[in-house]
């Protein structure tokens, strides 16, 4: 098979994209900044990238964002699609270190590491790539796109930091079979 991409990864790309796309419309309003919302789908992207690695993460980000934009908003903002892939790839690069499926995502060290990675990946994506593309394509004012980028970064770091971490920890607890369980009276 080309590039040794195994079936499970192909399926994870497909179904992960489906999940990401469906969650496009699920948003948690921030409250204190009007017209901004946290996107739970980012937590799903982070989770899938962390479990399946950079290729799966990148594809889900790219395809999922493009499909979500197209199906629900009737347009594709390419300048925001590519950064999404950057997040997926960035988090996915260290998939082995988190060992979510093996039950390793429970120690504080791993959780902190995961969150450092996601914060950096999001920074590259939203504070560098997205604004630069916006300026190149739409000649939009720099202060506007960097402000937008900063809020996108903040929102995504928050949602992945809380929801993404909750999901990964929970999954790790369930997937890594528990030992030493005793019935209590």
């Amino acid at each position, binding site marked *: 098979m080309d590039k040794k991409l195994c079936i499970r990864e192909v399926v994870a790309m497909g179904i992960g994209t489906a999940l990401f796309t469906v969650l496009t419309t699920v948003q948690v309003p921030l409250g204190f900044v009007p017209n901004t919302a946290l996107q739970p789908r980012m937590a799903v992207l982070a*989770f899938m990238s962390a479990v399946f690695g950079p290729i799966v993460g990148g594809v889900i980000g790219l395809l999922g964002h493009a499909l979500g934009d197209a199906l629900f908003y009737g347009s594709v903002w390419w300048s925001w699609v590519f950064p999404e892939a950057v997040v997926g790839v960035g988090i996915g690069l260290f998939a082995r270190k988190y060992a979510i499926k093996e039950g390793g995502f429970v120690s504080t060290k791993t959780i902190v590491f995961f969150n450092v990675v996601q914060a950096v990946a999001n920074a590259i994506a939203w504070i560098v790539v997205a604004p630069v593309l916006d300026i190149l394509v739409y000649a939009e004012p720099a202060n506007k796109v960097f402000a937008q980028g900063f809020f996108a970064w903040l929102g995504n770091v928050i949602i992945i930091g809380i929801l993404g971490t909750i*999901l990964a920890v929970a999954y790790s607890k369930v997937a890594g079979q528990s030992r030493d369980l005793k019935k209590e009276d």
Partner: protein
Amino acid sequence: MTRMISYEARDTWIHRLTGFTKLMFFIIWCIVSALTFDTRVLVTMVAISAVIFAMSRTEWKQISAVFKLLMLFMTLNLFFIFVFAPYQGCEIYGTRTDILHLFGDVYLTKEQLFYEFNVLLKYLNIAPAIFVFLVTTDPSEFAASLNKAGVPYTFAYSFAIALRYIPDVQDDFTRIRNAQEARGIEMSSKASLPARIKNVAAIIFPLLFSTMDRIDVVSNAMELRGFGKKNKRTWYSYRRPGKSDAAVMIFAVLFAVAALVLTYYDGSRFLF
């Protein structure tokens, strides 16, 4: 639930084009639209998009909900451009013609209006193209033509799987959200932010877990039926490209070259 745009089988020459042709046209369209700020080019593109839209016999009700949402986004975006940089247009075009004094030292300028008008055109010529693409392209034929065009079939197939399982995941999501809502877990409650995120977690958690199970089942099913056995695969839904595919491609390339020459021959992508 917001209504999604989806493929509808009809018989027009646009439906008969291969998905790959339409994708290439769409990408060329996006690139030209991204590079140019020449109003003549942008207006021509909007006009062509409108004609294509009409020829695809796409009905308004298929896209109306999404179109309204798009308009809302565009308006917001244009508004924010003005808020953040009321003189962006003046910087780009190098002149300043005040029309209206708004407040303080903020003036509405002719250049700003013209610049924002061009940004609007940029969105407007992409929208019909994407509607037509989504409504007229059979997803499986599209995956097949992607593969034929050189995309590894594993990636092309993952796209098909995504479209196959969107409705299933959507159903799961609705069912799970309903059941959790009945337990008192609401996504739209007025609780504090952390509490709201927790509530969302209670809905996404089961959804994600059943998705992970589904990935296992589907991978086994695909392996049992020989997916990935060979270096290439054939496609039931593949259609050979015809004369009109060639014509569309040639048109797209010629148009792109012409548009870019027109845009850049004076050394700047902006024309005023």
